[in-house]
């Protein structure tokens, strides 16, 4: 007798990794924050009336933000791998393939996906979002400064807008090249299948998402009223919003350290066979120099904020002079990060343009060795210049001269990079594309940013100019005029490889000219009011500065329109752009040898490199 049994098809049980995504992360983050907030509200004792600092609310806020962070990272799946490893059972091959986003479609962009190409696109998205928000805040600042009396924004809200704009843009510019292009392009460019530590790659991205929430949270509990530098003891007196800043920086610093270790290891250990250092593209040098600078700099930034949190929440006195601390300690820690950070931003952007220069001049990079020396020279000197931000603070007057010397010396390796770019353009077979024009824009903008920087590096001139709009104009010329110009050119240049479509040529040109003209109008106006004595970070100003401020505001609006045109170009080109051939620029680096869509592991057979990437023949005679 036979028995018929109904056999149900049982779906295979989903592993925990498959259940986690950005929505579970958000849910767990919010729940954790609320639970810890309620518990700490109930259990933490009231501050004693005799306490020097009232810190209970800071404790509650920081604990809740920490809970958000842990909850979010758990919910996205960042802890699954380490936990399994601790249990002595690492992820299986199929789980690793799932993490890599194999055959997952668009869902992979919302998960803890380890594929470097997905991480690169995620970085591109968050960079655009950061620039949109930071740029939007810049428009609020400029609108408020359109008239001398200000008053559109409440003075405290204005301060917070300035501080938030600053820190958003700093983070945006730090990740704008190494994030999207360092992740998407760099491994293919060196002939690798992925990054050295794919899970760390995903971790570095999701840490930035986790960091964003405390910053936004901070806006609703008093804001960041100290400017982006968050100097102490000012930050110690500031509203609870500063706790959001502290958490944002701490989490972002971890992300940068993780990304730095990952990128450095990838380049050192995973370059294709035959890709000697002399054959390694200059963009790779730029990315590695950037993250190598960030590696020692960001732990210091992290530490500076941990001590700031201790002062606020635990009544310590690291920076509180009344308790034996020193504001100078904060200034030193901050700028030990802060000045290398300028080059963390600049070097990869300039290196990306140096990578494009041979492509659009159809000739080799002029003096590759000088380019490498220039990058190395800037990197080396950049860790020895931090105190030029503190000439007037009274910290160490005897050190002013040495720091002036190191700061002025840095113009020599910077000049080398100019030489390489100009030398490559010289007698090149110019292919007039938007990326090539960006090189011209960089030379112009960075020349102004660089020359004005020399005046600021000079102690007597800085005594007059420091704290003025001149400083604001100077660093916008370097970070935006040079850095952001390089990043936008990179976007247009590598867009075909990242999306399979060409960036709309017309829109790229319109955006370029609007941004460059608007930018120069805005910030040359700012130089003028700075020279005339207008201090920075003010909500209203004397009528004598009105005309130049109005010009700056008009320039800023032109930049906004240009950036929105660019944004439209990104979206419309990605959706409906002309399909790109495999190598639309006829470039010689490895990323142009792979088809779109790029296979999960990039290459069927890993390439062997026999020449450098700049074999375009000689210059025009």
């Amino acid at each position, binding site marked *: 007798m036979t028995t018929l049994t109904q056999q149900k098809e049982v779906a295979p049980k989903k592993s925990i990794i498959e259940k986690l995504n950005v929505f579970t992360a958000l849910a767990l983050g919010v729940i954790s924050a609320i639970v810890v907030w309620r518990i700490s509200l109930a259990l933490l004792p009231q501050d004693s009336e005799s306490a020097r600092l009232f810190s209970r609310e800071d404790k509650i806020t920081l604990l809740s933000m920490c809970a958000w962070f842990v909850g979010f990272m758990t919910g996205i799946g960042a802890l699954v791998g380490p936990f399994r490893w601790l249990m002595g059972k690492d992820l299986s091959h199929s789980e690793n393939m799932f993490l890599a986003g194999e055959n997952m479609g668009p869902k992979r962009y919302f998960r803890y996906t380890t594929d470097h190409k997905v991480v690169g696109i995620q970085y591109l998205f968050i960079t655009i979002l950061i620039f949109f928000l930071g740029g939007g805040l810049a428009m609020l600042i400029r609108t408020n400064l359109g008239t001398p009396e200000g008053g559109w924004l*409440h003075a405290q809200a204005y301060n917070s807008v300035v501080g938030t704009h600053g820190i958003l843009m700093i983070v945006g510019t730090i990740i704008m090249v190494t994030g999207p292009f360092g992740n998407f392009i760099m491994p293919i460019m060196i002939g690798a299948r992925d990054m050295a530590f794919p899970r760390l790659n995903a971790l570095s991205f999701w840490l930035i998402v986790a960091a964003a929430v405390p910053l936004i949270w901070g806006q609703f509990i008093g804001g960041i009223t100290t400017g982006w530098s968050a100097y102490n003891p000012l930050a*110690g007196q500031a509203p609870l919003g500063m706790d959001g800043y502290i958490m944002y920086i701490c989490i972002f610093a971890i992300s940068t350290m993780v990304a730095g270790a990952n990128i450095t290891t990838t380049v050192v250990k995973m370059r294709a066979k035959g890709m000697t250092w002399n054959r390694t593209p200059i963009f790779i040098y730029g990315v590695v120099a950037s993250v190598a600078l960030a590696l020692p700099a960001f732990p210091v930034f992290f530490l500076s904020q941990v001590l700031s949190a201790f002062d606020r929440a635990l009544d310590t006195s690291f920076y509180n002079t009344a308790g034996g601390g020193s504001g100078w300690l904060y200034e030193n820690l901050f700028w030990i990060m802060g000045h290398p950070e300028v080059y963390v931003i600049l070097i990869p952007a300039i290196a990306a343009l140096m990578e494009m220069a041979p492509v659009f001049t159809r000739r080799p990079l002029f003096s590759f060795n000088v380019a490498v020396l220039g990058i190395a020279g800037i990197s080396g000197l950049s860790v020895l210049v931090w105190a030029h931000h503190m000439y007037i603070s009274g910290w160490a007057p005897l050190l002013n001269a040495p720091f002036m010397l190191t700061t002025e010396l840095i113009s020599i390796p910077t000049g080398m990079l100019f030489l390489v770019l100009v030398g490559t353009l010289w007698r090149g077979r110019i292919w007039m594309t938007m990326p090539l024009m960006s090189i011209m824009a960089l030379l112009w903008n960075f020349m102004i940013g660089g020359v004005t920087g020399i005046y600021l590096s000079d102690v007597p001139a800085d005594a007059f100019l420091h704290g003025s709009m001149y400083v604001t104009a100077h660093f916008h010329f370097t970070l935006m005029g040079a850095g952001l110009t390089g990043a936008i050119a990179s976007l247009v240049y590598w867009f075909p490889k990242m999306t399979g479509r060409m960036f709309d040529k017309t*829109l790229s040109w319109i955006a370029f000219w609007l941004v460059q003209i608007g930018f120069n109008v805005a910030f040359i106006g700012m130089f003028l009011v700075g020279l005339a004595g207008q201090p920075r970070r003010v909500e209203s100003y004397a009528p004598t500065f009105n005309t130049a401020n109005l010009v700056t505001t008009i320039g800023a609006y032109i930049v906004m329109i240009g950036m929105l045109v660019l944004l439209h170009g990104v979206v419309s080109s990605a959706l409906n752009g002309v399909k790109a051939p495999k190598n639309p620029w006829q470039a010689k680096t490895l990323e142009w040898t792979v088809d779109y869509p790029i296979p999960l592991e990039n290459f069927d057979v890993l390439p062997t490199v026999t020449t450098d990437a700049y074999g375009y023949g000689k210059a025009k005679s």
Partner: protein
Amino acid sequence: MNKRVLAVLGTVILGAGVIAGIGTYVAAAKNDSRVLEATPAGTMVTPQGTLPHATLAISVYPDSMAGSHGDNGGAHPGYVTYGPVTNFEVPAHSVITMTVTNYDGGESLNNDYFARVRGTIDGSATLNGQRMTQISPDAVGHTFTVHGLAVGQDEFFVSVPMKAVAEEDMPEEGYTSKPNVTVFTFITGGPGEYIWNCEYPCGDGTIAKFGAAMSTMGYMSGHFTVKG
């Protein structure tokens, strides 16, 4: 018009609209959005002739259980605060009489300048009914100080110290039954928007006492609008 051009224009308008929306939200974020309008009180003879007269009555509390922060004290029940609100609106070219009832204690000012009455008619005020032009810098509870750059609007500066309630008169709970009442009168110019704040460092507990209530909107600072 070309569809493509329209799409670009649409993005620019949409983007600018989002930014304008954020700006409108931030501009409205004054924490205490309510406004106390001065009450018309006929006319008054002043050195500048007979002018319309209006009055404002406000208080200073040692915590936030009164004022604009709700019965439970809002986000910071322990913060010292002005009340019932912190934004005021008065008529232009008028005489304004303000009555400030101070329920809070105090200590020394950082800057003695603010211990003197400034910007009122004849530079005086009354404290509990007695005329005064200044109080001891060591007995100041708070100040009501309106100032702002005279840019595109009339210059306007009024600063009046509020005497601190004596320590022995400060109860363990609730508010003192012996508050100090300061009355002062000043003349407004043309329309303009000014910021007022307290110049006594009363952000207790934070470094230099300029944090907490002193650095959070809606407690010891606000808007002072002169309306035409």
